[in-house]
């Protein structure tokens, strides 16, 4: 892809068009609008392609299991002939594989995810019933990650010497604690030891729900709190050495204002980049955390459905999580140019 640096299009003698002085001329240049549209379209095309390929992988994974697919789908149960006939009809097992795929994918696009064997309900209904708990858990974890991660990173970056070393070592240790170990440690400390928070269940609405979700959200977020803090710290350290920060400081701006307007704003890019990985990690780890804390969310449903050999549900949840991950990554790619205009749409040379 050919890229054009803003400076390269300026007139050779350094003078710009009189109506649009300086570098701003390039932004309003006619080519840029179409380039942005092409950039967005390209990203959306890649998104669609990835989702399509992922759906193929998820659907045809079932064909890796040797033997009768009807008996695979009814494992762990003692299937009567009617049940076998029913599952054959429901999944269209007597049809060609590509036809089965089209049926499934068509259903998925229309919100028909098949039927759950254990719940004897539509998979979409089971999923929708479980979704709020998972979303609340992930949202609370995201709040902890943003607040604690940013604060730790900023404090570490602004304190040289012992403070920085101390926070860095703590972060390295915290980043190495797997979420389920963090869950056990938090339960030992805050539930069994201090009795501040419950160790099990989702609680009923409002304040109780928040109290029940606090420990799970902390356990879920610990790896990413450390990650965001480290990225923030190094990103800010890089910015602090830049000339524009020095200029801002020498002009007599207060430290807080320099940090907020000149350091943090420019440091956001790398932090945003990791957020795609973060969402996928949160959704996947939430299965472990929900199972540990007995929260009735999507993650616990995934674990239970694997345990109860309910493949239609497993397939649906895997597809949902992968889609969420791919979607978030695309959104991050799309808003990156808005935050940092240097990564102008269509001129990504990162």
């Amino acid at each position: 892809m050919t890229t054009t640096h803003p400076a390269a299009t300026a007139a050779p003698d350094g003078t710009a068009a009189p109506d649009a002085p300086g570098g701003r001329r390039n932004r309003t240049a006619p080519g840029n609008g179409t380039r942005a549209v092409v950039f967005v379209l390209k990203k959306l095309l890649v998104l669609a392609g990835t989702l399509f390929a992922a759906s193929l992988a998820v659907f045809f994974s079932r064909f890796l299991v040797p033997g009768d697919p009807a008996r695979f789908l009814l494992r762990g149960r003692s299937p009567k002939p009617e049940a076998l006939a029913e599952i054959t009809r429901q999944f269209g097992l007597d049809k060609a594989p590509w036809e089965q795929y089209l049926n499934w994918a068509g259903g998925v696009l229309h919100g028909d995810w098949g039927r759950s064997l254990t719940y004897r309900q539509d998979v979409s209904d089971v999923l929708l019933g479980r979704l709020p708990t998972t979303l609340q858990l992930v949202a609370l974890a995201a709040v902890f990650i943003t607040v604690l991660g940013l604060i730790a990173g900023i404090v570490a970056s602004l304190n040289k010497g012992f403070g920085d070393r101390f926070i860095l070592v703590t972060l390295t240790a915290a980043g190495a604690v797997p979420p389920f170990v963090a869950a056990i440690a938090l339960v030992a400390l805050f539930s069994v030891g201090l009795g501040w928070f419950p160790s099990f269940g989702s609680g009923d609405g409002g304040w109780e729900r928040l109290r029940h979700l606090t420990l799970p959200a902390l356990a879920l977020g610990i790896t990413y709190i450390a990650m965001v803090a480290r990225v923030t710290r190094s990103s800010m350290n890089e910015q602090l050495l830049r000339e524009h920060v020095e200029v801002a400081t020498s002009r007599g701006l207060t430290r807080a204002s320099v940090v907020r307007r000149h350091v943090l704003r420019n440091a956001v890019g790398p932090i945003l980049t990791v957020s795609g990985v973060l969402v996928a990690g949160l959704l996947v780890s939430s299965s472990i955390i929900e199972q540990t804390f007995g929260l009735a969310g999507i993650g616990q449903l995934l674990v239970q459905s694997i345990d109860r050999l309910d493949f239609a549900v497993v397939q649906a949840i895997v597809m949902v999580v992968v889609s969420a991950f791919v979607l978030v990554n695309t959104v991050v790619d799309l808003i990156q140019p808005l935050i940092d205009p240097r990564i102008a749409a269509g001129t990504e040379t990162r």
Partner: protein
Amino acid sequence: MTLTLQLPQTGIRRYGSLLSPLAWAALLVSAAVVLAALLAPALAPYDPDYVDLNNVLAGPNAQHLLGTDALGRDLLSRIMFGGRTALLGPTIVVLGSTAAGLLLGLAAGWSDGWTGKVLGRVFDLLFSFPALLLAMLSIALFGKGLFAPILAMTIAYVPYVARLTQGLVVAERTRPYVQAYRVLGFRTPWVVLGRVMPNLIPTVGAQSALNFGYVLADLAALSFIGLGVQPPTSDWGAMIEESRGALLGGYVLPAFWPAFVVVLVVVAVNVIGEELSDRIGGKLS
């Protein structure tokens, strides 16, 4: 007047100066844990499955150095034997994904044509499946135990190694020694596998060391939620799950020891991996 020559140190001394004291400590800890797991049948004081109901939830004492669990089983012995399953999985995953990732990355980085493009797309697709999720899908297909998650995670970690290798190869291709081999007419496979690949191994190895920690944690988590190693086989993740009842009753140690070992090993391999990549990065720049 004496003439001093700066000769590059060779062999083990070179690596000695390459690693910081912290990395040496991490290396020692890892070696100790691996040895304890390998020699568990000879070193462990008790049978890890020996139930002693007269001696449940005992604290550390002369007979049981780390105490006993809710069934009176010796925690030290269970941790030593548990290390065998807990370390075996990540070892297979890291070896498999490193080998496959190196080869695919070399192929993708070396080719200008469609091979590189297609492989790049495949890596992208694999990146959209988080390792733990792929492992769960695999367990749903092939059943609980170690086989299914090990298979899935090996595949899931291939793109991490391959993408790194690809980038390194693209940079390496333009270096004079590769050009020289080409001009001299050496065959491509010999140059790639014999001359380029050895230069990539330290960097890729650093990534693989980090991967080892992630895989260990993920496999332990799967055992913890009952989808991985099945009881009564001792495994660190499964031990933590078995100890939850005791934990809620106020007995912390049976859950603490396996959790401590998991974190210890993950920290140790992270320190080694980061140290390696720092040093290599410093050496190159």
